[in-house]
């Protein structure tokens, strides 16, 4: 429990940093996890190849929502090319979930990253979890 619902995750879940929508996003993508109905949308503003603003929206468990909050926080100021390379190991380290955790919950944690990449690589190109 303590490793899954650490303070950081609960904090981001209860007080998400960047929940909402952008008015004119350059990139907007939504992905679902059919297993549990989790849904995450990410809007990005991009200027000269750099992500200048990001918002997320959606519903789901504490893990997927906290992960979305931390990820959108993290990528602001990041070049698009670097964000495209953002790995699942990096994400799990960011939110503090061990890689060997219950695979169902890992799927929840990865949903925002999947959404981000679907947006950055273009519609219809959502990568599988093991490609992240």
């Amino acid at each position, binding site marked *: 429990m303590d490793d899954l619902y650490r303070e950081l995750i609960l904090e981001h879940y209860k007080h998400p940093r960047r929940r909402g929508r952008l008015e004119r996003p350059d990139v907007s993508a939504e992905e679902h996890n059919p297993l*549990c*109905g*989790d849904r995450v949308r990410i809007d990005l503003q991009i200027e000269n190849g750099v992500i200048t603003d990001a918002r997320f929206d959606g*519903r789901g468990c504490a893990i997927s929502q906290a992960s979305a909050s931390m990820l959108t926080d993290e990528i602001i100021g990041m070049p698009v090319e670097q964000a495209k390379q953002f790995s699942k190991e990096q994400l799990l380290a960011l939110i503090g979930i061990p890689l060997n955790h219950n695979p169902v919950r890992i799927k929840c944690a990865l949903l925002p990253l999947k959404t981000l990449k679907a947006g950055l690589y273009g519609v219809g190109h959502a990568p599988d979890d093991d490609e992240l």
Partner: protein
Amino acid sequence: MTASAALNLFDIVALRREFPILNQSVNGKTLAFLDSAASSQKPRRVIDCLEDYYRRYNANVHRGIYRLSEEATFAFERARGKVARFINASSQREIVFVRNTTEAINLVARSWGDANLRKGDRILLSIMEHHSNLLPWQMLAQRTGAKLEFLPIDGEGRLMLDNLDAQLAGVRIVAITQQSNVLGTINPVAEIAQRAHAVGALVLVDGAQSVPHMPVDVQALGIDFLAFSGHKMCGPTGIGVLWGRRAILEQMPPFLGGGSMIKVVGLYESTYADIPARFEAGTPAIAEAIALGEAVDFLQEIGMDRIYAHERELLGYALERLSEVEGLRVYGPATTEMRGGAVSFTLDNVHPHDVAAVLDNEGIAVRAGHHCAQPLHAHYDIPATTRASFYLYNIPEEVDRLVAALHKARTLFG
């Protein structure tokens, strides 16, 4: 209702000892298994029965002229007889062994459905059906041009039958669950069958959640098909049952083609075996069928009426205790009247995955998700619920632990 009231029905301590898996810790706490609606645990004698088959008389059935094969065939057919008596079938020929409920329903939709349905015919289901009693009919409708109709439910999660007679117009088959795996609602299938038969429609009952938990008598219910799974009734996975009225099964074409389902095979044409072999192509799940027979003996020795009564007491206690948890909403009937022991709920805005994770940390196994009933969850406009479900080996202390853990989840995420 007190903890001891539920214990009076049978010696629960001794009964729990029959289930080796229950004697273990999860995250340092005794396992509280509250997910029997997904799959039940198995008593030692069922596990032993599987092993005994492989150790002593493993051989294919209906084929060998040697001792082991004869013994296996005898045990396999005896299991069929046990299952027939368990649901009061009029003949053991009416028992078709399949893999599970899903396959049983697909068999009827394919075999009976393709042979009998025409464009414009109607199929009546309900919105509380498990996907396995929905998809086979959707696919049949797409193949034949038949139309699907759905019985609605009321605020308590009970079927609304006010318009049943009107909804039955043009219906050829009604396929309905006897007990909802999400709401716990027990549906009046005998009444539905009577009214369906009045317009010449057949009735298939999804018994996946009823046969394990209450006495089911197919003749008293007056239905035409019953589908259920061994793994939810103390039996193994990989074995399930389709019961069908003999006169109807006899008119149905085969489902799968292959060995065992034939009389005479030519290069271009063949004739088919009588029922039930006609529907049992290929080598069956022999060990599993025999062990299902053992599970049936086990359940009958305890008594299905006592199992039902035990679960009902637990359910009553659970509904009462859960109502103490602030922010908790139970879906389905609020009382034990015509209701089984599957209790699905939401807890404020805490996601069911998070609820289940907190419970898991307390050693409590529940299911979180849509429970293969997405249309029902869409009806309530929720993506998922958490479900606790009870069986003969559950005890009031497990309900207490569930409630305590739910308070904890609320504090954690509140």
